[in-house]
């Protein structure tokens, strides 16, 4: 299996604070990998570093899109990273709140389309065709996720669980090879979590992409992921299959404290 993401010795300092310390990670195509750890372990910082929202202090982030060659992406502009084929959702939902559900997804088609200022002013047939394609493709994705009946509502009026799903739809619209989900099940009830789990599996199988997720819902992590990485205090303390992780003494110590180890 081909490697999609290869992270080596990744470190990030905020002034004197080392938020990430020599972290390694490898994700193969078609894999579902989970990243877990106590609050403040540096999971979201790790996400921000590999999507280039932060520039890593040290280390290598190498990314290989579905059809393409490996490239080093640390320090690249975030929009170019998205263009390469890495897309993410946010822990605290960051939708475009005052735009409609459909428009939210349409914006994500930006990096796959080209229409410029002149085209917009003259509204040439090519541009009109492209616009309609954006609408159609976005609507198709909404249907896939199951949000099409809300397409004309403002994003901020959606129920919380649906907002999380819309974030996923938006991320999918950029046609990623690797999808990063930052706590997708946070604040969801058990039914919503269950349907989210189905959705993640369906995305992986039908759209053929690798998925890396940060999650605190252990039952979801254990049943969904093929491999798990565990972080604590900015370091990767363990990695392995769900079975291995649930028995690992360091992980138990990190989560439950010294006495239980």
């Amino acid at each position, binding site marked *: 299996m081909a490697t999609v993401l290869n992270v080596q010795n990744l470190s990030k300092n905020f002034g004197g604070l080392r938020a990430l310390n020599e972290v390694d990670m490898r994700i193969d195509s078609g894999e579902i990998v989970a990243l877990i750890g106590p609050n403040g372990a540096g999971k979201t910082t790790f996400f921000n570093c590999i999507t280039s929202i932060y520039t890593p202090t040290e280390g290598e982030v190498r990314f290989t899109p579905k059809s393409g060659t490996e490239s080093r992406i640390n320090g690249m502009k975030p929009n170019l990273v998205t263009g390469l084929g890495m897309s993410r959702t946010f822990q605290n939902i960051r939708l475009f709140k005052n735009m409609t559900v459909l428009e939210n997804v349409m914006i*994500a088609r930006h990096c796959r389309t080209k229409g410029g200022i002149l085209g917009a002013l003259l509204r040439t047939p090519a541009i009109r065709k492209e616009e309609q394609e954006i609408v159609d493709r976005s*609507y198709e994705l909404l249907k896939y996720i199951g949000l099409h009946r809300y397409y004309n509502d403002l994003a901020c009026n959606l129920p919380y669980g649906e907002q999380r799903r819309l974030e996923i739809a*938006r991320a999918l619209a950029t046609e990623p090879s690797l999808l990063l989900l930052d706590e997708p099940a946070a604040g969801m009830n058990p039914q919503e979590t269950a349907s989210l789990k189905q959705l993640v599996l369906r995305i992986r199988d039908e759209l053929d992409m690798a998925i890396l997720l940060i999650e605190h819902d252990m039952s979801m992590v254990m049943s969904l992921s093929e491999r798990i990485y565990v972080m604590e205090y900015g370091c990767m303390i363990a990695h392995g299959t769900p079975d291995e992780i649930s028995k690992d003494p360091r992980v138990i110590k990190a989560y439950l404290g010294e006495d239980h180890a």
Partner: protein
Amino acid sequence: MQELTKSLKVSLWFMFLTFPLMVVRVNTIEHTVEWRWMNMVYMAVGSFALSFVWRWALRRKEMAKAAPERPRNAFTERLGSDKRFTVSVYGGLFALFALMPWIVSTYQTNIFISFMLYVILGLGLNIIVGVAGLLFLGHAAFYGIGAYTYALLNHYYGIGFWTALPIGGVVAALAGVVLAFPVLRLRGDYLAIVTLGFGEIVRLVLENWSDLTGGPSGVSNISRPDLFGHHLSVAGANTYVYYIVLVMAIVTIIAVQRLKDSRIGRALQALREDEIACQAMGIDRVNVKLMAFGLGTAWAGFAGVIFAAKTTFINPASFTFFESAIILSIVVLGGMGSNLGVILGSAFLVLMPEYLRAFSEYRMILFAMAMVLMMIFRPQGLIAPKGRKYIINDPDLAATEGGKA
């Protein structure tokens, strides 16, 4: 009872506030003080009554908020959907405006020229403030840059209006992009302060670079636009400028509307909503911000060139911060992000003062009152931006929506 005490307090407060202004009059010649107690009574009764109206209006606003989905204004709704209605309304408006200079006096024509100049300026600023959400207080500077581009090119090189029009737009757009570079990282209040400063810098440069710009005395004898090489009389040229600005305003309305509905316009809106998410979705933040400034200020440049051609004399006093504030008020009052709103806003702010000359002493008070009332009762502006309608090809959806209706 509670209402009564409330209103009583209000009227007492107003009596106190207006006491020095309305009641006491010092006669400095005879060294006597005149007490106009009747004024105080009027004030008390007036504010007592108005406070009831005020509370009623506030309650009505609360009710409107609680009631879900009031039916939309029938006129605007029909304007959007009924094609024949739309065509006839716009056609009628166009005919009215096209015939205007033949119906009304030159003075009135001039008022309408300045109204349409403000429409162009407001629409340009609407791209920056309304669509991209960047608070921009230096729009008049770019208006000035456009005007001076034509004035100086005409003065030194004898370049005509039609050549200068695109040059003025391009120069203003470039100046906008140049300003955008240092402010890329700024948002909100900080951005407002920097753009305010930039506006003042431009004005001060124009005022002090006397060798080039003529300093505070400005540039005079700028050529009026030619009609295919023919020179026109003053009145004729005025009518001609009217048509130029009418066409330009229509071009601006169409262009800005198209930009707003395009891929670029969506990117600008995304930038307004959330900068980080916008980048994560593959939009180049720097590029889009530069575009927002360039696209917005270009229209100010065009308006400036037309302004210089209309007045044939410009000086830096026409491009002060007050001008920027007026243009911003047009956008905010009309409705941020709504083009129709901007047109109504400039009609309100430019035409009203002209036709209410009788109240010209109270103009600033009325202006301030309109702004305050607007922010309380309709913070979204006269016309809230309307979402675009998309064509969805989905038989299931059509079925469900048909079932609902």
